[in-house]
């Protein structure tokens, strides 16, 4: 039984109908509604009490504006982030991999580490910093200060060998092959920026979690794994196109975890054009 159905047990019959109508209405007027509606019935990692809270919010939020509703839905999701439970794998992967758009990482550094890296108008200092990571170099002090991302990180690993490199599945060195496998945003690919591939170990005090609809918030390229599968998440691949015929494309294992310090990176990082 899905967690949606388990949570719905606590709702009277009319409430269930009301909920389904509401989520149906949302999906008709908004792409965000479509994404949530597609996933909420199959979510099974988010604990039932958290699921109940989410359903209550959707059912009872009195706002008549879907715009406001979506902002609030996102806030409820923030509160339920990283609740999907530990990975149920025989052995914790030794190496995790995260793919981040160059421009996103640059903005992250510029916004969150302005005193350290952010004062060059032409971004030369940040570009140098990323270039050094690509050459396998990171200063001790900055490695202990700078995080991979501000909040949580979506990550994958090598499902065949927990000690192997997470992106070994690629048949090409094209960034889009990783994007297509990881379910990154397609618009970014169209803007032709580079993709950064980070490989790292996760320190013991951080527990990678199975991803949930709350972690995905309103974003594309997420769906809960099949109801009978409880080990981890799976990435959602891009829809196949002919130009992707050289790619090795299939859902990859997926988790989400608190951000890590760059000192945990396995250097050098890879920059894929």
């Amino acid at each position, binding site marked *: 039984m899905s967690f949606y159905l388990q949570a719905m047990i606590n709702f009277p019959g009319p409430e269930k109908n009301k909920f389904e109508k509401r989520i149906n209405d949302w999906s008709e007027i908004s*792409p*965000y509604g479509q994404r949530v509606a597609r996933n909420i019935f199959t979510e099974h990692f988010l604990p039932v009490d958290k699921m109940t809270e989410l359903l209550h919010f959707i059912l009872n*939020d009195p*706002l*008549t*504006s879907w*715009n*406001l509703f*979506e*902002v*609030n839905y*996102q*806030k*409820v999701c*923030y*509160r339920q*982030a990283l609740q999907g439970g530990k990975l149920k794998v025989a052995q914790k992967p030794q190496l995790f991999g995260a793919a981040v758009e160059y*421009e*996103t990482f640059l*903005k*992250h550094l*510029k*916004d969150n580490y*302005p*005193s*350290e890296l*952010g*004062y*060059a*108008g032409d971004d030369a*200092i940040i570009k140098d*910093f990323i270039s050094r990571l690509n050459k396998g*170099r*990171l*200063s*001790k*002090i*900055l490695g202990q*200060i700078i*995080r991979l*991302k*501000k*909040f*949580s990180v*979506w990550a994958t690993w090598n499902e065949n060998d927990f000690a192997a490199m997470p992106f070994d599945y690629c048949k090409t060195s094209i960034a889009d092959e990783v994007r297509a496998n990881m*379910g*990154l*945003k397609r618009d*970014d690919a169209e*803007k032709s920026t580079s993709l950064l591939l980070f490989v790292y170990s996760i320190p013991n005090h951080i527990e990678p979690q199975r991803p949930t609809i709350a972690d*995905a918030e*309103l*974003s*594309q*390229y*997420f769906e809960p794994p099949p109801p009978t599968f409880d080990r981890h998440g799976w990435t959602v691949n891009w829809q196949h196109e002919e130009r992707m015929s050289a790619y090795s494309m299939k859902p990859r294992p997926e988790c*989400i975890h*608190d*951000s890590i*310090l760059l000192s945990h990176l396995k250097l050098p990082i890879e920059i894929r054009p």
Partner: protein
Amino acid sequence: MIEKNYYSKFKQSLDQPLLKYSGSLEESNYYNKFEQSSGQSLLKYFSTLDLEDWIDFFDDYYRHELTFLLRILDTPKGEDIYSYGLIWVNNVDSATRELITRGNDILLSKYIVQNDSDLLEETFKAIRYLKLNVNQDLLAQIISSKEGKPKLRELAAITLIAVHENSATTFWDNLDLESDQFLIPSYIAFHRKNNPVKGLGKLKLLQQKPENISVFETPILYSLLQISTSTSSVEEYKVMQRKFPTWANTFIKELFDDYPELDDFKNKVKKPYEDILEKMGIEYSVLEDKTLPKELMNSLSLLIEKVTKNPAILGVVNQKRYNIISPDYIDDMKIIIDELFVAVYSSVNGKYHEPPKEPVYDIPENSIYYDKPTIFLYPYFLDQDRIEKAGVIPYATQTSIAIVLHKDNCLYKKWQALRDTAIKDNSLENNQEREVDIRISKADSKKWLKELVENIYNTNGQIHSIRGYVFHSIIKQFVIENVENDDTLGEVLKAPTDLSIVKEKLVFFKQPKVGEQIDRNSILLLDPSDAFKETENGQVFMSFLQSTFFKVVTVRHGLDIPIGIGYSLFALPRLLNNGTWKKLQVLMKDKLSSHKENLSKVGIELIETEAISELNTIKV
């Protein structure tokens, strides 16, 4: 600690209250345009916004009013509107960027009036990321405002540099960096391209290590890289660096490790032997200490040479425990040596806890003690044989040598003549027999000794000495420096005789058999202290001396052999650091000062004043 702080911020971000519906929700104009632009690209939609729209757009963005922005700025999995949203806006055309800039000028002014730090910080982020050429006077106003929060003023400074890299130097010069030290990293960052030496010069204002040192890393790094491109800047830097606080110099050294691109600069500013001293744990200031005795400086030169040739010996140099050799055979110095032992032990091995002493009577030059860090507490004579592997912290010099020679030896007669002349020409009182006769000049003494050696060469005599003493080596040194035909010395200089068999082996002590012809051309070298019967050995030597035939003279050899606390070269680092050598030298000079006169009689002169060498330099 950092992670906890970060995590608490993360948690706070989860506690944002849900928006309340107020009954009517008036759609902003920019959102109306968005809805009407359905199917168009986002960039095309942005080009339809006017100044008012952009002001509303960014005001909502900064205030976290995302009601209309959420649908416009769709974000990918794992991102939020703040980490990602403006990436869309960054691609606008120049006309639109100009509108955005004007809108942000207006918002900056508004937030300054409202004195809203949070909104200003958000605005700075967008200005930096989108490279908006906003009114720099507004940023300058925030930076200069003494009432403003330091963090906000620092971020305004960073933003000013990011968007107005060539802002007026006078503005930066007029900042009160003495009190607003949080602006120093920005000051350095501003000057990093055009005048990096000037920027780094402000480091001297920070005598205490700043709490957040990471903000200095890239400003200093890029300043150093820029300095590296100009010879004159490098020279200016070398002078200025001397005024840097210790933390800054240490920090810069750490940058050298982390940034190979600084190798060129490092080589240009590197002081001689800096690396090797660091590897041996020797403070660089040692090289600049003009009071360092030449004996220690010479040892340092030798040690550097050895390590340069064979870096593997660094393991020995950095050995944790030093050996300390204590002379239990010098009874009359026992108290002094015991005190010295404690002082040396605590200086080189840490807290004193009565370790087993290592009493050794005689340490030959091939001893393993010279292959590890060892300190010799007995008065260590730094003769020519030892100088390659050992040194001394000097507290005295050895000036004389006692010589046993036959009374009919022509040189003994010459010596008597010298004395007679000296007595006539000198008002000093007659000194005791066998005492160093200071009435005979050093020059005459050396000349006489030279003649003595030459006489031995010519008469097939022999030079004897006692094992465990340095006089065998001192006579070699004397001959090398003073006698032209020094090759012959090998033929006449006998191996030192063991103390236990001198009476059986050496003519000077043996009772001659009836009719035996006594060798008149050979001599025996003795320690003046022994000759003067100051020591136990001396008492024995003198009582067995065949005084009917042999006399003792004590002559100044003119070599000034350093005496002091001895050490193997590998023990040098800990003696050099923290002025340890000086403390030990003072201790010994203090303890021996009451013995000055007696020591002088046996040819040992205490170092009178602070041993200030002429400008010592390392010679490798």
